């Protein structure tokens, strides 16, 4: 078995592809730099991430693939699913080895799998756009905690910068402990040290803007009034609004 070690970055992965073609040996497994190798390794190679090599691979992809394929690959990378790097590796190899375009061949297992995972990540991105709930703080920043299954927050940020261009906001991924702060000009990646500011997604009441409570109350009242008693359908409700998102939804508190 041939294994490659790399630093688990996207550039590293692209460099690994470069090295594989350069050495003409293709790994059966991709491991982190210090990960313990499985038994029966005949050959190993440690990839040294090199942006020049990685950008050459990316340029090659730009020549051969449609934009949608490349965004699919980055979505799969952000899924953080175990083995997603090997999936991307196999996909890129198939694309590079084929003389004709194969991106639309969904009868191929690897290609279909990449598409399906990209779709799942995209769904998570859409759910962020749907279910983010801002709470206004005393210093006029709109704050929203999230905890998506996949690391889809970077994909949703452009939507929020366009939509809420005239207000300061923070969207914070509590699961991965990082977030984005928009200061009316730029979006900055931030990490908060004090996670106790918002236990269970609710900002400390002393830090809220004076009107915030009443608007939350109104939204909850509105949400409750909207339901039609005669049509109550808990199964459909949970299907459309899965329980894992309730934690941060104002109307479900």
């Amino acid at each position, binding site marked *: 078995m041939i294994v490659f070690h790399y630093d688990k970055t996207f550039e590293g992965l692209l460099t690994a592809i470069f090295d594989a073609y350069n050495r003409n040996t293709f790994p059966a497994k991709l491991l982190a730099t210090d990960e313990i190798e499985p038994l029966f390794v005949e050959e190993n190679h440690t990839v040294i991430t090199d942006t020049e090599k990685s950008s050459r691979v990316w340029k090659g992809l730009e020549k051969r693939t449609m934009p949608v394929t490349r965004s699919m690959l980055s979505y799969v990378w952000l899924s953080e699913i175990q083995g997603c790097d090997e999936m991307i590796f196999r996909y890129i190899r198939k694309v590079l080895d084929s003389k004709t375009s194969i991106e639309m061949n969904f009868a191929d297992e690897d290609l279909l799998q990449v598409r399906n995972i990209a779709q799942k990540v995209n769904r998570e991105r859409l759910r962020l756009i749907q279910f983010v*709930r801002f709470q206004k703080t005393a210093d006029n920043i*709109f704050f929203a905690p999230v905890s998506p299954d996949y690391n889809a927050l970077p994909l949703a940020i452009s939507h929020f910068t366009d939509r809420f*261009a005239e*207000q300061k906001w923070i969207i914070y991924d509590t699961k991965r402990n990082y977030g984005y702060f928009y200061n009316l000009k730029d979006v900055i990646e931030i990490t908060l040290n004090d996670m106790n500011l918002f236990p269970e997604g609710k900002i400390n009441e002393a830090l809220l803007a004076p009107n915030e409570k009443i608007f939350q109350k109104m939204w909850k*009242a509105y949400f409750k009034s*909207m*339901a039609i008693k005669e049509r109550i359908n808990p199964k459909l409700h949970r299907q459309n609004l899965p329980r894992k998102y309730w934690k941060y939804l104002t109307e479900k508190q």
Partner: protein
Amino acid sequence: MKEEVLAKLQILAESAKYDVSCASSGTTRKSIAGGIGNTAGWGICHSFTEDGRCVSLLKIMLTNYCIYDCAYCINRRTNDIRRATFSVDELVELTIEFYRRNYIEGLFLSSGVISNPDYTMERMVRVIKELRTTHRFNGYIHMKSIPGCSQQLVHDAGLYADRLSVNIEIPTEKNLKLLAPEKNHESVFKPMQFIQQGMLENTEERKKSRYVKRFVPAGQSTQMIVGATDESDNQILKTSDFLYNQPGMKRVYYSGFIPVNSYDNRLPALKQPPLVRENRLYQADWLLRFYDFKVDEIVNDKHPNLDLEIDPKLSWALRHPEFFPVDINKAEYRDLLRVPGIGVKSAKLIVVSRKHARLNSRDLKKIGIVMKKAQYFITCNELAGLNTVSDTSPEYVRSLLLPKKKGMKQPDLQQMTLIFPE
């Protein structure tokens, strides 16, 4: 914002909730400097109520006072309910504050009719004008057009709203007269024509100059109540089909009748709203809009009502066994769409994938085709089509595909039961 506004919000949301539409699609608008928000183009649902319906817009009435006395409506003047009226400022502030917290995509403004249609409409237009001009609100606005109002007011509304709608409510005029003696179909179709006319003129003007403001960019929609009167599905779908053939008509909604005024004996006494029928009508609606079906193929004089047990596409397939089996690797896109178990997305995937290799049933399953249904209607590589509807019979396939009744376990014929004497 005080408790008083909260009370108004509850009353007026309660009154507005029976309107089905909550779409926020059809317009794309980037944010502008100094303005609030944008419009995504594809609808975004921000929440879902306990009955599973999407909450996209702040669906609210300006007032629930009404001079009319329509039997199906909760806000009829003879009903003893709490009444309230929003001021323009209250509603504008509420919309913007909700929008800033990502609760909603925009506003869906409706109203009861006070003193006369023009007076009401004018006040509604004031709200959306204030939002768009003073606050430069860039989100989605859907406004109801009041039946019987003047063309000028419809025109004003259209400059600020993304979508306008007028509800037909009852599909035939005879029954409308029965339940709402003060209304007629003309008062509904008139504003619809105004909107349509405005849109057509606007398209012409925009050809000359692209700086002309868009008029109702997301088109119009309407709604029909199902099950309050004795119309057949044939009559309902023919009406929808007629409406869809008008330019600018984007959606017809169906609302299963909920007996809000059960004391009125002109209305049928229902234990439950006809939810299954409503669902079948939506399925038929989808066939009209996305599956290239003609309305006569779904319902006609011979089959005036939709089959409640199976969906309309399967129902059509079983009536036309001669059309099947469809060869997955050869059939045209529009023929693939006719196969039960294949939707728009999977049909498209089939078309692009089969260029590379012949597809077999395993591929189809992975692509996402519902083989449980589709297997009786297709042939592909190794699936020679032994069990297809044309080889067996429609009745047989139907019996296989009927949903199993829950709670009634099929007796296991191979296992003998043991009965011990007392």
